[in-house]
């Protein structure tokens, strides 16, 4: 899986920052990690927000209550070094980026699809937390019937492309929609479209949104 060069629709700063701070549900982390695997621009943004986390760890005006380690902590850690299993990332052969391949057990052809009508198929992925990740397979030229979803919906194109009222979305592009977005995505005629879609499913997550929607650092 190589980097895409024609990505026009990116993640927002607030999503990247939430990912870097480690505050988002697993399903959203999955979509972000998959997009960043395809997009160096968002990868650089993520590493910058990581740098902010690192700077905070070094800031004595913030870490005013530097915790004492237990007695024997260093010795226990040195002992742990040899015991710890270091799992090297296995090279994955897949038609999707590595973070997603781990969730579908290989490639798009390994996915256990369920029909949802109009020839569209989906597969819900196993994630913890208050958001749902699903793969969508939309046959060429087919429209996803208008659907309502409460809260946030993120759609990342893996293969093929679709068009809706907000524009044309090709591989690597992310569409970010909320309950006010009225859209009817139609897959391009030339090939089938595969997407990773994430919806937030709970009030709890919605209450998390305001602070993420209001970024206080823009890069």
């Amino acid at each position, binding site marked *: 899986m190589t980097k895409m060069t024609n990505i026009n629709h990116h993640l927002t700063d607030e999503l990247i920052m939430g990912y870097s701070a480690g505050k988002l549900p697993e399903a959203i982390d999955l979509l972000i990690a998959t997009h960043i695997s395809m997009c160096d621009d968002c990868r650089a943004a993520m590493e910058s927000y990581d740098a902010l986390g690192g700077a905070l760890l070094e800031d004595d005006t913030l870490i005013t209550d530097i915790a004492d380690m237990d007695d024997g902590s260093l010795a226990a850690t040195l002992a742990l070094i040899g015991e710890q299993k270091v799992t090297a990332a296995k090279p994955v052969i897949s038609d999707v980026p590595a973070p997603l391949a781990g969730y579908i057990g290989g490639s798009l052809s390994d996915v256990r699809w369920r029909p949802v009508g109009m020839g569209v198929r989906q597969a819900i992925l196993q994630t913890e937390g208050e958001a749902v990740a699903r793969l969508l397979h939309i046959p060429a030229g087919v429209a996803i019937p208008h659907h309502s979803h409460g809260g946030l919906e993120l759609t990342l194109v893996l293969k093929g492309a679709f068009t809706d009222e907000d524009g044309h979305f090709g591989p690597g592009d992310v569409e970010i929609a909320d309950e006010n977005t009225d859209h009817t995505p139609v897959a391009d005629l030339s090939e089938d479209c595969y997407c990773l879609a994430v919806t937030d499913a709970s009030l709890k997550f919605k209450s998390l949104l305001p602070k993420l929607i*209001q970024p206080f650092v823009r890069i």
Partner: protein
Amino acid sequence: MEPDQQHWIDCIRRIRDDKDQSAFIDLFRHFAPRVKAFLMRGGTDAALAEETTQEVMATLWNKAHLFDPTRASVATWIFTIARNRKIDAIRKQRRPEPEDIGWGPEAEPDQEDVLSLQQDTARLNEAIKSLPDKQRVLIEHAYFGDLSHSEIAEKTGLPLGTIKSRIRLALERLRHSMA
């Protein structure tokens, strides 16, 4: 005086190349209490924070060969290890990470690139120090606090854009060298 960033990079190298315990002890004394404080600030009790911190520091030894000083400071690298461990061990979620693109240089990194990132990092550290207290606390909450904190809507003007450009450049070079 606080040891500088180069000192921490040297410590990681000494662990990687010589399995140097004294380098590890240096890093441990400085960073372990900070990692523990970071975990406790997020609501983790002291015993679990202690255990998790030991795991984070052991990981640092075992993954020393993966550290790339052209793309992250040592503090940043430790932050990412601690954050991932927190999600995994404390929040009990998997942490999907982006596909690796050669984090872990085969050759020694270009010293000029390492220095530039150090300068950017020093500027960021200074900028955080000079923020008004209220903004500093808000940023700290966003990273270290638990989920239920107040809304954040203030711009801070932190020099993150320069770091982003620097990393963007490093990524381009990496892509070029792999092509």
